């Protein structure tokens, strides 16, 4: 009986966490896809490519959200067993003492999954994500064939009737910075060693800027996109695991490493609180206000931690010792506050 009840709790605990994780990570994923598509005015044939690429970034998106997802998962589990009155039966047969080892194992398991994702999975996937993202940007794969428009940032807009590979046909183009308007039979995007060229063939060009007012007819006109160099792969914080971050020469990276260490402790505290939440029961009482309060305290703690990271990066006098003292005091305070609320 006790064994079945234990399995039941574990199963439902992970079920709710997984549902919440899928819902919110799914929403973030979709919003990222839509964001990229909208920014680049593109859609349709690139959608799978963008979806595939942004999918690779999801493991690194998960880490900061895990404590919140665990909290929401435990709110839901509590609500489920409370509404079906299972909580009364469970409390009768399983005391907190009997469940202590099970609870510790649960936290350990979540901690291991989190560590695995934080140190290995997200790092490897993020590397692949950045490479794919650069491939898309550098090959200028984003465009709007269906709307017959092609835009390169705030530099050039090309309106065309037909596109085959990297060549647009029957075009009208605007070069913004130079107030140029071009009408030509075709334009080809040429990838040179270090930047992009637009090669216009058979057309005419009108320039109306401060330095030049002219109209020219050309057989071939090459416009070099000087500000559009190949974007190089910049190594950002998500490319490194905690150990690599801590030993990084740049201060911001080291600070991010300390933030990652804090996140482990944050997760443990939230995990402990979440287990208290699951079995919280006061007869004929709505738990929403208590749970909301705990959720906002945890949210505030994360915002405060972000502020401390900001101080570490920007304030000279704020050292790493202060960071840990402040954060650990905060964590202890939150834990005891939550215990008091959930007594």
């Amino acid at each position, binding site marked *: 009986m006790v064994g079945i009840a234990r399995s039941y709790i574990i199963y439902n605990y992970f079920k709710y966490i997984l549902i919440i994780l899928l*819902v*919110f990570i799914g*929403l*973030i994923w*979709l*919003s990222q896809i*839509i*964001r990229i*598509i*909208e920014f680049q005015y593109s*859609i*349709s044939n690139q*959608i799978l490519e963008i979806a595939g690429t942004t999918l690779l970034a999801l493991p690194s*998106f998960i880490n*900061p*959200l895990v404590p*919140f*997802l665990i909290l*929401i998962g435990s709110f839901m589990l509590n*609500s*489920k067993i409370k*509404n*079906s009155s299972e909580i009364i039966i469970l409390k009768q047969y399983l005391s907190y003492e009997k469940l202590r080892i099970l609870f510790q194992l649960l936290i350990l398991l979540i901690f291991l999954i989190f560590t695995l994702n934080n140190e290995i999975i997200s790092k490897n996937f993020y590397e692949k994500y950045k490479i794919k993202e650069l491939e898309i940007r550098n090959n200028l794969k984003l465009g*709007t*064939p*269906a*709307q017959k*428009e092609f*835009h390169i*940032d*705030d530099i050039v*807009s090309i*309106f065309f009737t037909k596109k085959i590979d990297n060549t647009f046909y*029957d075009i*009208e183009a*605007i070069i*913004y910075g130079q*107030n140029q*308007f071009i*009408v030509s039979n075709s334009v080809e995007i040429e990838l040179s060693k270090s930047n992009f060229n637009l090669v216009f063939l058979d057309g*005419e060009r*009108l320039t*109306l*800027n401060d330095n030049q*007012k002219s*109209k020219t007819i050309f057989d071939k006109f090459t416009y070099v996109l000087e500000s559009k160099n190949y974007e190089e792969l910049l190594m*950002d*914080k998500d490319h490194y695991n905690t150990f690599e971050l801590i030993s990084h020469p740049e201060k*911001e990276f080291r600070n991010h490493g300390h933030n990652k260490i804090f996140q482990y402790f944050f997760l443990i505290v939230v995990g402990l609180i979440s287990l208290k939440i699951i079995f919280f029961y006061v007869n004929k009482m709505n738990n*929403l206000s208590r749970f*909301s309060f705990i*959720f906002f305290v945890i*949210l505030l703690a*994360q*915002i405060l931690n*972000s*502020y401390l*990271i*900001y101080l570490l*990066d920007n304030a000279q006098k704020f050292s790493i010792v202060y960071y840990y003292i402040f954060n650990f005091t905060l964590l202890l305070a939150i834990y005891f506050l939550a215990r008091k609320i959930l007594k």
Partner: protein
Amino acid sequence: MILSLYLIKKFFNALLVCGVIGYAIFFIFSLIGNLGEKLSFNSILYLSALNSFQIFTFIPSHLYILSFCLIIMHLKSKNELIIIKEYIELKKLLLIIFPILILFAFVEIKKDSFSAHIEKMKTNFSNSKNFENRKIFISTNGNKSKYSIFSKVDSKNEMINQYLEFDVENKNIKRGVVSNSLKIQNNNLFSNESIIYENNNFRYEFLNKRLFDDFTNIWSTNAEKIIKNNENNKYSNYKIFQSILFHSFFYLCISMIFLSKKLVKRNINIIKVFSLILLIFLYHLLIPKIMVNNFYFFFQSLSLIVFILIFFKNKKYE
């Protein structure tokens, strides 16, 4: 009436809970992403808050689905769903949620505009100069096309700094105008001086000339960066009509699934229902984004028919 009010109250409670939780999650996600920016912490908080709102504008339908999910779970756990289904018929239930449905359909239609507005706020705040500060009006008529480009260099100042105009006829540039001395009077855009290319000649014009009527209104109401006016009224009216129907039927379908008889049963296959809702949700999200070169109207009409069929299929079994 009491039951209707109870349901509406429950729905708004669920909407509030989902909205707050979703906002908190998106806020943390944005905050951590923005921490690397070279801005003050207050600015980072503000940008993260805007980012979180923007995620809502990208996919507003998720709030409706999650809220409905929460309310149904709640009603089912207290066996209230059976009572509601017993006492209120489906038509009345749909009538109760109709105002909420209309509200969400309105948000869906306006979501691009909301998102563009938030993006503009973000740009103004971070002082970055980008494509948002430029609008291009393109009008085509047979072999003729006209490009009117308005640039606003200073994003905080509402004034337009440069006006460019290019006229093309039979693949030849017929006319070009540039003006850097502009002013807005009674919502109309005027130029004090301009350089004009016409008949293979360049000339200066020092006249106070009206360039664009009702400019302020057009600038603020058109969220798009490129506005094409070769679409006739019939076409744009059709688009709006199609869009209203498309979103309304989507929300109706979702509501029908959540309020169906099947969900009252204890042994219902949740995965089946979840998959169906997920498919409809993704379909609704992707279809308006797909632009096909040919048969666009047919394509969009077909997508609408799909929702109408889903709606009537579900209605039939109720």
